């Protein structure tokens, strides 16, 4: 990266992302995970075209079937095809994961940038607020907040996002503290750029590395939180399938129909694993000088 380049614009030019991609490709696992994630998301998105059944199609002539060629993952108590339901459940789970990560990372970046950039009292107040938010145990708080969601995917995402901004805020604040001392920030200020513009154009783009890594890991966390809540019966309600509420249903009949428990859980494990590997690879790729051993 040349000096001139940094002063002119935010670093998200093709050249930089090309480098990131090159570093990332060295992490074969991260690349594989990336394609696993894309594939799973695509298959779930295309569920109406791929699945041979409706997710709520009750077929009493074929209840509680083991996995077979007709029903790849078997059927449940009502004869609903589990593979179909896992696909449809994935749409909700993945959507919530992505949306919550956007909300949480956006909020965290904003809080962190404002705190780090303006410093002093604003910093103090925002960091105390962050400490406070950190002090309340996440899952119990989410359980209480579930009363607000009306069991809808979007409001659920917003609430999960509102619970997971603190780590990003702290990391971004730390980055901003050093970025705001840079010559290019001074230069922008000297030509009269307003503070919000400096934050948006010069400060945040240079903190994009940790933000992207944090956002990636947040997707996995959100998926786990949503499924935990739905599993407790406080999240997305049936008949809309999610991986969490499918597992809640499966719990009672686990002994005789283990496949109902195994497959939705495997789906969660696989997608969260993929997202975490991507985050890990991105961390190394975006921070080649960093701690990565």
């Amino acid at each position, binding site marked *: 990266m040349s000096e001139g380049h940094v002063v002119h614009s935010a670093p998200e030019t093709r050249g930089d992302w090309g480098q990131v991609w090159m570093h990332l490709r060295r992490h074969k696992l991260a690349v594989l995970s990336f394609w696993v994630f894309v594939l799973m998301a695509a298959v779930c998105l295309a569920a109406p075209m791929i699945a041979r059944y409706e997710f709520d199609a009750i077929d009493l002539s074929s209840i509680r079937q083991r996995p077979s060629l007709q029903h790849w993952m078997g059927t449940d108590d009502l004869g609903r095809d589990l593979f179909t339901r896992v696909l449809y459940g994935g749409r909700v789970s993945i959507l919530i994961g992505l949306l919550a990560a956007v909300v949480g990372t956006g909020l965290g970046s904003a809080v962190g940038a404002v705190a780090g950039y303006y410093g002093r009292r604003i910093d103090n107040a925002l960091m*105390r607020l962050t400490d406070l938010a950190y002090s*309340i*145990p996440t899952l*119990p708080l989410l359980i*209480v907040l579930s*009363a607000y969601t009306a069991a809808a995917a979007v409001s659920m995402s917003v609430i999960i996002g509102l619970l997971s901004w603190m780590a990003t805020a702290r990391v971004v604040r730390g980055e901003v503290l050093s970025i705001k001392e840079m010559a290019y920030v001074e230069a922008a200020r000297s030509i009269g750029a307003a503070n919000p513009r400096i934050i948006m154009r010069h400060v945040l783009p240079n903190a994009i590395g940790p933000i992207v890594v944090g956002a990636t890991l947040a997707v*996995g966390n959100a998926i786990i939180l949503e499924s935990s809540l739905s*599993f407790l019966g406080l999240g997305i309600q049936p008949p809309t399938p999610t991986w969490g509420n499918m597992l809640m249903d499966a719990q009672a009949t686990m002994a005789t129909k283990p496949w109902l428990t195994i497959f939705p859980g495997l789906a969660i494990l696989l997608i*969260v694993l993929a997202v975490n590997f991507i985050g890990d690879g991105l961390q190394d790729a975006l921070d080649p000088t960093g701690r990565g051993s």
Partner: protein
Amino acid sequence: MTTYVIRRVLQMIPMVLGVTIVVFAIIQAAPGGPEGALLETGRFIDPQVIENYRERLGVDQPVHVQYVRWLGAAITGDLGVSFSTTRPVAEMIRERLPATLELMGASFLFAAVVALALGVFSAVRQYSTFDHVATGLSFVGIAMPVFWFALILQLVFSVRLGWLPVAGTETVGASSLGDHLMHLILPGLVLSVRYIAGWSRYLRSSLLSVLRADYVRTARAKGLPETVVVGVHAVRNALIPLVSIMALNLAGMFSGAVITETIFAWPGIGRMFVQAMFARDYPLLMGILLLGSVMVIVFNLVADILYGVLDPRIRYE
């Protein structure tokens, strides 16, 4: 150091106060009040009956009035009366707390021992098969939803093999210490898996960097056996940052306990919390959340103090 601790303890007061305000507001403002449990029966209920019910519970008052009333009592240790059982909340929590502390304590110890062993072996034999397997499993341990792991363990060890009880704390009519411990194995394992994964990874990387330090080379140059070099010189220093993280996580374990206790019918405050949510038992929810938050705040302080005690280079002014 003493002044530092005193200052931090004093800072905890506004923090706890802030937490109570936030949590109280969230609980009270939620749609669907405690009368929801009555309405769920589906029968018609005279609106006047519901009005009286709300009045008797005190939830008809404005939120700030309720909060001041609650806070005034809470300072004296009175957390109010449970809506669903009409018993004092403090008493209900005291009754259930030992079970939760037992589960968390057992999981914490188990996780610490296993993570220590895994972390040290992984670091000493870096890039060995053992290291690769441990790394892979720790990724799985972190990505796996706790409740699913619990279901799979129940399926394998309770249902299929019949080695361990599915849930509860004792076998009715055949309770003994051994029987109780058998009941503790699965929930303890479930609650600890995440920390085993996290801590062993952390210890591995921490130990790897310590093993490159000059004093480790000095110890080797003196001709000390490798077990002493690693076990005495390296591990002790590698543990310093980990101990703080462990203290922080101990408080965070409460979130995991909520799920674990619910699945294994473990009679602790986590399970009681979920039941309280379904019943919209505001005082009980409030009491348990307050306890959980205080635990986080206290263990935050413990983590910071431990860090200073263990690492003499760190000085608090």
